[in-house]
Structures are given as C-alpha cells and as structure tokens.
C-alpha cells in the first residue's frame, strides 16, 4: 500500500500520513528525496524533520542514550545533506538531542543509577562503548514500538551503522528506564512540533505593536509567517502593504492573490510592486518585514533571494527592517563561508527554452537563497517577542545544549 502511494507524486502531506505505516528507513528515504527535489520548503522543513526524528526515537532500536543520540544525529545528517542550505534541519536535530540529554540526565538523577547508563555529560556524541558484534537479536519485548511485521524484517537494514549493534542484555530496571526515556523524549519532540506550528501565530500576536495606522509596510516575497503577521495586523490597523517579488509574473496573473484578497477584505490596501529594485519605493515605506529561513548566531539571516536588496534599500533611507523568525530557526552556528555559496534555482522562468539562441548563449544564474548580513536587521521578531542582535546568543544558549552547538551536519 505504502510503496504505491509513494511512487505516485510524493508530497510531504502523504509522507507524514504514511509515517506510522511505513518502515522508518523508507520514510527517511522518502523525505530525503523530497528535500533533494526541493519539494519541501520553508517552515514545512522543520516540521518534517521533527516528525522524522520522532519516528527515529520511537521506532529504531537503541539500548542506551548514546545510541539514540547517534541515530538522531545520523538521520539529521542525511536530511541536512539532502538540503544543505536549510539550517533549520540542524536546529531541530540539535533541539532533539538536547532534549534527549536533558531527559536522560533527569532519569539518572531520579533513579540514582549512575553507572548503568553511561555518563552522559562527559560523553561525546559518538559512543565510547565498544561495539559488541554478534547476531542481531530481535528484542521486540524491550522495543514496544516495533511491532509490525515489516519492521521486524526491516531491522537488519537499519543495523548497518555500527553503533546500533549493541545487544547487551540489560537489567529490567534499565530497560524500564529506557522505556520511560523514550516516551519522555517523544513527548518532548511533540512539544517542539507544537512550538514550530504555533510560532507563526505567536509572532503574529506582536503585529499590532509593530505596525501602526497609516504605515506603508514593504513585504518582500511574503512567507507564510509574514502573511499571517500582516493579516493579524490588518485586523487591528489600517495600513498599506507593498508586496514585492523578483519573480516574473505572467501577464494576467495577479501575484499573491490570496493574501491580497484577505488583506483587502480587512480594509488594508495592497500594492503589488512589479519591480526589481526597491530603492524607488523606499521613501514611501515605513518598515520592511522579511521572513527568515534561519538566523545565525551573529545575527545574519538566511533569506529568500532579493531580501537583501530590500533591506539594503531600507538601510539607505533609515527605515527599520523587521525579521520574523521562530526561535526554532535560530542557528547556533556562525555563518561559515558556505553562506556565500549560493544555491541556484530554476532558470526556465526567466529564459524560455523556446528561445534557443538564449539557451545556447546564456549562463543563467538564478539565485534562490541569500545571506543578509546582521547590520541590515533592526529587530528580530520571534515567538518569544522582539529581540535585538545582542540577545540572540542568550536565546540560543537557552535552547541548545552546549555539546550540540558545534554539531556539524555537513560533510567535510
């Protein structure tokens, strides 16, 4: 049932529905392919990552916390490699790993069983336990989640990684402990998923503080977060929205039609700017709202391509730039050199393949992501309220474990 579903036009929605019925490995593969094809975009990525890690925690075999951490980071690595520009995958992985560490240390303290579970706080993410080779036993009794026949058969496949080979029989206490840990971690991941899904609404809750009556607000390529923010503001304020994008819109097609309709319905004027440069409009604009894909530790923002044009123009006219970003998009890493490596997108929207001469002649570079340096951002509006650049580090320290901050999900 599942394979036929997957082979036919896979989407994230279908994948998430089939998570419970599919074997773990197949689900991960499916998500990897969706990511590689860039069929999962924007805020869905965080959600999908969290779902997948939840499956990893629930379904995969692990005997101790280190194995679990390794499994989570392995899965994270595969997802991150499928979409190297999406920092948010790494963020969710770090969050989940931090969660596991928290829960594990709580358990240990509670039970005072310091030596049966490895000493977590001092261990690196790769397990120091010697791997115990041997036939892989199907310990269904201690793994309540893997009950389906398919999973039982699949286990051999997931055992490829050396860290999963552990098969030391555990004391009854430790096994119960693991069981409790599993369910606590699952609860924790569900909380993270809730946080991700509620972030947009929480951010939108600050809309009427930021947007004032009579404002002209420029939204460059409004993301769902920005859309919700504007709609929430529209419920309370009368203002004008400039919607801009660098995408070429076909004649007769109205850009952002749904958003415009909603805003207009609430009595807010919208003007779609069909322009590349935005300097011309900046004297009119009061503030610029940009949706972030990720926020780095230094305050730099990963955005849709073109946002830095808007931000730069705003800086020229001293207009505030508000970046909307859920805390889960905060990436504890500093932007490395690879942020300047831009990702190229589909060129056919700009140069038609029918134009043979152009196809031959042009090296088309349609850049889809862009790095916005921190000096162009005035406010980071998060689900925890507005923040300035100086406090980003504090927030990140609150949300990520020190051990996970340096986690690298990219191959050297």
């Amino acid at each position, binding site marked *: 049932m599942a394979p036929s579903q997957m082979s036919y036009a896979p989407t994230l929605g279908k994948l998430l529905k089939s998570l419970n019925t599919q074997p773990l490995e197949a689900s991960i593969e499916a998500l990897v392919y969706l990511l590689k094809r860039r069929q999962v975009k924007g805020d869905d990525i965080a959600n999908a990552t969290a779902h997948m890690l939840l499956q990893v925690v629930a379904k995969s075999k692990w005997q101790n916390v280190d194995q679990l951490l390794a499994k989570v980071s392995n899965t994270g690595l595969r997802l991150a490699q499928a979409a190297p520009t999406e920092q948010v995958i790494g963020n969710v992985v770090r969050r989940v790993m931090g969660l596991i560490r928290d829960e594990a240390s709580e358990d240990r303290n509670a039970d005072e069983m310091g030596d049966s579970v490895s000493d977590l706080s001092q261990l690196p993410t790769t397990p120091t336990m010697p791997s115990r080779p041997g036939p892989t036993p199907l310990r269904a009794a201690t793994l309540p989640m893997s009950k389906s026949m398919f999973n039982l058969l699949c286990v051999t496949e997931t055992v490829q990684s050396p860290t999963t080979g552990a098969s030391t029989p555990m004391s009854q206490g430790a096994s119960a402990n693991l069981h409790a840990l599993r369910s606590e971690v699952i609860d924790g991941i569900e909380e993270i998923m809730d946080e991700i899904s509620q972030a947009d609404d929480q951010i939108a809750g600050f809309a009427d503080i930021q947007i004032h009556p009579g404002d*002209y607000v420029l939204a460059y390529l409004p993301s769902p977060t920005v859309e919700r923010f504007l709609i929430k503001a529209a419920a309370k304020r009368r203002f*004008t929205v400039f919607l801009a994008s*660098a*995408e*070429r*819109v076909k004649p007769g097609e*109205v*850009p952002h039609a749904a958003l*415009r309709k909603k805003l207009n319905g609430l009595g807010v*004027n*919208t*003007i*779609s*700017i*069909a*322009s*590349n*440069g*935005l*300097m*011309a*409009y*900046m*004297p*009119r604009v009061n503030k610029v709202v940009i949706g972030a894909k990720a926020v780095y530790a230094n305050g730099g923002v990963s955005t*849709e*391509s*073109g946002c*830095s*044009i808007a931000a*730069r*123009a705003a800086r*020229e006219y001293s207009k505030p730039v508000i970046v909307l970003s859920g805390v889960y998009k905060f990436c504890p890493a500093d932007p490395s050199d690879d942020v*300047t490596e*831009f990702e190229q997108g589909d*060129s056919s*929207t*700009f*140069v038609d393949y029918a134009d043979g*001469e*152009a196809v*031959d*002649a*042009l*090296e*088309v*570079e*349609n*850049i*889809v992501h*862009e*790095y916005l340096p921190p000096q162009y951002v005035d406010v980071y509006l998060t689900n925890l309220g507005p923040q300035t650049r100086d406090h980003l580090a504090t927030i990140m320290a609150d949300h990520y474990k020190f051990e996970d901050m340096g986690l690298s999900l990219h191959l050297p």
Partner: protein
Amino acid sequence: MATETTGAPARAPAPQEKGKQQSKPAPAKETPVTGGATAGEQKLTPAQLKAKAKAEKAARRAKAKEVQAAAPAAAAADAKGGKGGKGGKQEGGQSAGSQQQGKSVPGRRPSVGGRRPSMAAVIKEDPRSSIPECFSHVPMAKRIQTSQAHKDVHPAVLAVGQQMATFALKDSIARLEATLLAFKKVIESYETPKGNSLSRHFVPHVLNPQIEYLTECRPMSFSMGNAIRFLKSQVNKFDIDTPEDEAKETLLEFIDIFINERITLAEVVISKNAAELIDEEDVVLTYGRHRLVEKTILRAKANGKKFAVSIIDDPYDQGGKELAKTLQQAGIRVFYSPNLGGLRAHLERASNVLLGTEAIFANGSLLAPAGTADVAMAASAANVKVVALCETINFDRERVSVDSLTYNEIDPERCSAESFRLMFDNTHSKYITGVITEFESGTDFAPAQAILTLLRKREDPTIA
C-alpha cells in the same frame, strides 16, 4: 482661464461686454481673470487700468494657449477661430479676438473637463484612476489616438509621439533623435503666414503644439527639454527681418550639427573613453541594457581585450537578455542573472560596474532604470567602482532630485494596485565613482557636479 472662472457659461459673456465698454483706453478687454470681481470696480486709476489690462492680456494668452492644447476635441472651425483671434491680437484687432472667445467659451465649456479635451479626458482618466493614491503625482505615458491629436501636430511628430507612447522609442537619446528629426520635417514644411516673421511666429504657433503633443504622449525626457531650449534660443536669435528661407536653412543645419555632435559623436567618444576602463581579465557588471554600455563593451572587445561580462537583468524588462545574446555573439563570456537576487555574490567577482543612465540631475544623482540604484549601492558597499555613462545632453541643470518619487514615470502597463511599477530610480551621487561624458578626456573621472560646472561655462553662458 476659461477653466478657472467658476461662473456658469451663460454668465461669462456678460462681464466681457462690460469690461469692453468700461476700459476703452486699455486694449484687450474681455473675459477677465477675476471674473465677477471686475464688475464692481468702476473707477480705476490709469496705473491700475494699465496693470489690469496687462493681467488680462496675459490671461487671454494663457487661455489661447489652453485652447490650442485643448482643441483636439473641439470642432476644427472653432479652434481655427480661436487661433485666428490670437494671431489677430498681435496686430491690435482685439474685437475679433474677444468676439471669438466670447463665442467659443460657452460652446467649449461643457466639453472641457478640467483642462483636457473631453475625449482625451475619458481615455486619460481610465488608466490613471487605478494608480494607487500615494503615487498619483507621478506622470505616465499614454496613448493618444491620432485622430484626437491637435490638428496642428505635424504627421512626423504624430508618428514619433505614438512611438514614444508605446515605448518603441524608449531611451532618452533615441527619443531625442527622433524628436529632432521630426522637428526638421516641421521646419521644412513651415511657411510663415503673411505679416508674421519666423522668429516671432514659429515657436508659439508651430513648435509649441508639437511639444505639447509629445509631452502628452509621454513626459519629455530631460535631453528633449534641453534640446528644445537650444532650438528655441536659436530661433530667438533670428532678427525679425531674417528671410524665411535663410532662417529655415540655419535651423535645419543647427539640428544636423546638434545631432551629430551631441548624439553621434558623443556616443563614439564616450564608448571609446569607457572602453579604456576595461582591463584584461576584468569582469564587467552591468544592469539591464543600455546603448552606451553595449557600445563600450563591444569596443573594448574590438580593442582585443579579454574579459567577461556579468549582466544583471530586470525580469520585468529583460533588455539584458538581448544584450547578453549580442555580447555572446561577439565572443564575450556572459554571466546572466535574471534578477537582483544574489547581487552580492555577483559583485564579488566583478571588477567594475558600468551603468547607463537616463539623465543626471544638478545634484549629481542619476535618473536611471529602476534597480540601478540598488546595483550602485551594493557595488559601492562591495568596493567595486561604479561608472555611469551619459551624454551631456542628458544633464539637467535646474532640477534636483533626492528621492525617486520626485521625477519618475509609471509604467503604463503596470499602473494598478495589482501590479505597479515605477520606471526609474534615483541613484545618489555618493555611490558613483565617476561619470564618463563626451567632454572629459581619457579615463579621468569627473563627478557629476564638476561636469555641470563645466557645461555651464562651456556651452550655455546664458544659463549659467
């Protein structure tokens, strides 16, 4: 003036009559600017009378001008009458003029909505009404059907106007050249009416209607404004007795020289100077397509330099695509970026930026296709030198612009809230490393302000 007085049409002739009877000493006494107010004043000192007469004369002139502009919709005979009246006035035939206007006012009044002829008004109001209010001050090109144009508009000018309105003639120099060539046709077919001289009659009665028509089709480019000023001052230089043929000959020659010097040779000189800026292994970045930039790059290539070009295009215009093809055919390596996204990345490998401009203001800022300012700003932030190429005819010596909403145009195809687009933007001079014009030599950069001073001294002492 007809539009300024708020009195009903029926009332209009009454004060006229009164005025005529009252003020015998002053010539020209008809529809006063002050409308009903004049009715009250019976006793006036001679000085006051004189002043009043002067004001009225000015008002009448203004009206006659308006009539000319508004005439397309009005009946041909009517317009002719109005013009005849105006022409007669110079000989001192006030009565004819006043009668004419007295007659024409009630007739025209209902049709004159605002200052525009009715039919044109219908067409005009339509697209403009959808412009968002905050941009309603910005002018926009519009198509005027040839049948609605003023009857005095020369066919050659008519064609040019249409081409401008449809953006077939787009950049400022192309428009300037077409305009001047059309004006040559106008001059060739001009015959001074009896009792007039070319130096007095040509500009107000023949040239101005052409200019007004062109302005209505699309706001004049600054180069056109400059050229027309030169042309008018040339006409004014003629003595009143200059024979018509001689004057016409001089004018035609003037235009030829003007086109040759300010357009043809300027292009050659600028591209030659700018080409020297391109070095071996450079990556030249440019925005959109501009004739001068294209000529410069091709010339540098012809000079045997080996370099690459990075073209940033405007997805709503796509001129850069054509440029990319042309350059590719010339054997130049071209990187093409369809929009401003990732501009920083493109600038990292660029060694210099060449920008074409539409005009340069007196404060040194550029009027250039929308997006140029963003490119210039990003380039200057990345420490890449930014060179603007511009003919001196595009320099405006009187206007100053600090933001893009002061002087701009709305794209007539994108003028509603669904899709709105300004055609130009304003690049502050601090982002420009240098401007290359036909007047400075070699690779010396001259900031725009310095060039303005130079121009003032050099060619137009009367204006400086």
